[in-house]
């Protein structure tokens, strides 16, 4: 991350995501955004979280947006969309990323035909979620990744392995993940657990957000150069 200029500057701005005087993240409505200098450019990306039931899609969404994670699994109803703001330095420029995370419940997707197209429309990246305790899900991953995007989308793809912290239940080995990354060229993000100290919530998730934003930025550059 050292190549991206002074990290501390991004960090100062990342404090703007918090409710002043606390370590909790602020809730932003669609009319709001973090209080950054107007000169900072904003970029918006749509990210679709897909994966089997209980693979941790909503969990990932909560984790990235810094919300409390519900202790029990409850199936998502319909489509939900969450905005994650992330100020970050790319090169020497500070950019405010707005990641629009889209997630749909399995039952609703099956029952209603408008759900999936709504999530896929104009998507910039697809995150395929899979639980690290689900061996079958992992074995099925090459197919899931292939089906995740349509060539016309040119969407970036990454795999999110949730429950990575639960060592005793883990059904996927580190070596397998590395082999997968190498053979498929698809990055795998290992997520699991939440920071034990609420003050560490943002530093805990920062590497993942940095990674996603950088990936999306690179994709933009590639798409521009193709044109």
């Amino acid at each position, binding site marked *: 991350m050292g190549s991206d200029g002074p990290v501390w500057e991004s960090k100062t701005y990342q404090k703007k995501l918090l409710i002043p005087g606390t370590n909790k993240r602020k*809730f932003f409505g*669609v*009319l709001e955004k973090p209080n950054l200098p107007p000169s900072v450019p904003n970029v918006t990306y749509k990210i679709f979280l897909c994966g089997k039931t209980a693979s941790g899609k909503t969990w990932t*969404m909560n984790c990235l947006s810094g919300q409390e994670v519900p202790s029990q699994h*409850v199936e998502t*109803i*319909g489509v*939900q969309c969450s905005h994650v703001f992330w100020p970050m330095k790319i090169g020497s420029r500070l950019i405010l990323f707005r990641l629009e995370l889209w997630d749909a419940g399995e039952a609703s997707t099956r029952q209603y035909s408008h759900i999936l197209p*709504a999530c896929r429309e104009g998507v910039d990246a697809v995150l395929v979620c899979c639980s690290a305790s689900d061996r079958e899900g992992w074995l099925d991953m090459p197919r899931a990744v292939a089906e995740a995007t349509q060539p016309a989308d040119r969407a970036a793809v990454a795999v999110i392995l949730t429950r990575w912290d639960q060592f005793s239940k883990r059904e996927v080995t580190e070596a397998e993940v590395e082999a997968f990354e190498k053979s498929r060229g698809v990055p795998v993000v290992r997520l699991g657990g939440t920071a034990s100290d609420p003050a560490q919530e943002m530093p805990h998730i920062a590497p993942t957000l940095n990674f996603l934003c950088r990936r999306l930025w690179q994709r933009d550059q590639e798409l521009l150069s193709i044109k």
Partner: protein
Amino acid sequence: MAACTLVGLAASSGVPLFVRHAGPGKPPAYALIGSLNGVHVFGESHGVTLCSTRTKNASFTWRTYHDSIRLVLIRGSEVVADSCDSRLLDLMFASLVLLLGLDNLTSGTNIERLKRDIRPSYLLLDKLLSRAVNSSDNLGFSHLTGCAECVIPPDQHILQSELEKYAEGVDSSCACVMMNGQVVSGTRSFWSLSHMELVLLPLLVATNTFTVARDLPIYLPDKSPNVPFRMLVVKLTGHVYAITLCGPTPTLTEIIRLASSSWAPVYQVLESITTLLPWNIAPGLLSQIDHSVIGLLLVNYDHKKCVSCVHLSEESRSPPLNTAKKSAALEAVYRSVIGPLLQPPAVPPDDFPSRLHPDHVPLESYVSTDSYKVYVMQSSPYHLLILYPPALPIQIARKVTLRTLAIFTKGSMKICRH
């Protein structure tokens, strides 16, 4: 805090569909659930419908819906099962209909599939259960009153006209603005929803606060139990949401865009509503309320609205009650007085007139305990419950209650205005 458990069974086969539990302790064992259903079936085979019963440490309520789903509510000892419990079960069944549709729910030929389909409803069922056990993070009275929980904003006109413009723009007649699960403003068609729908829709919106937009396929339990609608929820600011009931269009992306453009000019108005938290009542009205009032609940049954406030400070010498205790006190009095004694004007309980002399209709009542006094007043279509410190003489409590009712019902800022 008493424990509360809800059991859902397939009425014909007795197969348990789900068990939800709130409060301390564990949910009942499988065998016990079987016997609970067994007793009911035994009664049925003898031409008797078992409605409720009470043991040494729990009370039970049974209800069977459309001969297909049976719900059993098990409560800890503190509260006696009453008409409120069967209304709660009605709400719970309605929340199943809300997400599944009546036909899908009751024509269940495949039990395993039904079990799976019911799972998304757990959110709402749990919310209702935590209301039932009076959990402090989920206060409210809508499940008791059958009316939508509201706030009274200082100036409703701007918001109302913006809402109507927005609803028109997204081609929907049924729209409302909500803050923290309470309705701030609604269109005419929104207020024509049934009591149960007005209780459940805000609860469903409040189940999820971290997302900025949601597209929820729902059925309306009374108005449209078999044809689904899309409930589109957009978070405008940290606490304020715009909700519309739509058909196939617009898409969620479009509605986010439309909401951003149409509400941006009134951002300041939306922000100013947030200052009503946690009192729910406009400062102009709040300042007129007597200092002896430490909590209140006002219900307008005609307009299906209720407003509550448990954040009023008390200056008496008695030990102060916290908000959860105030809520619990108001709830306990509501359960014991309204229904058995005072008749809710819009929803008369089935058993009402039989117990009282027809010429003698009570209009006021009070409950006095060591830690609080509650004065209850009925003035059609209102019910007003006011919580006072225990030391306040009852005749003063009565006078203050009368005056408070006048503050809310007369003048320019009536709760009844749409």
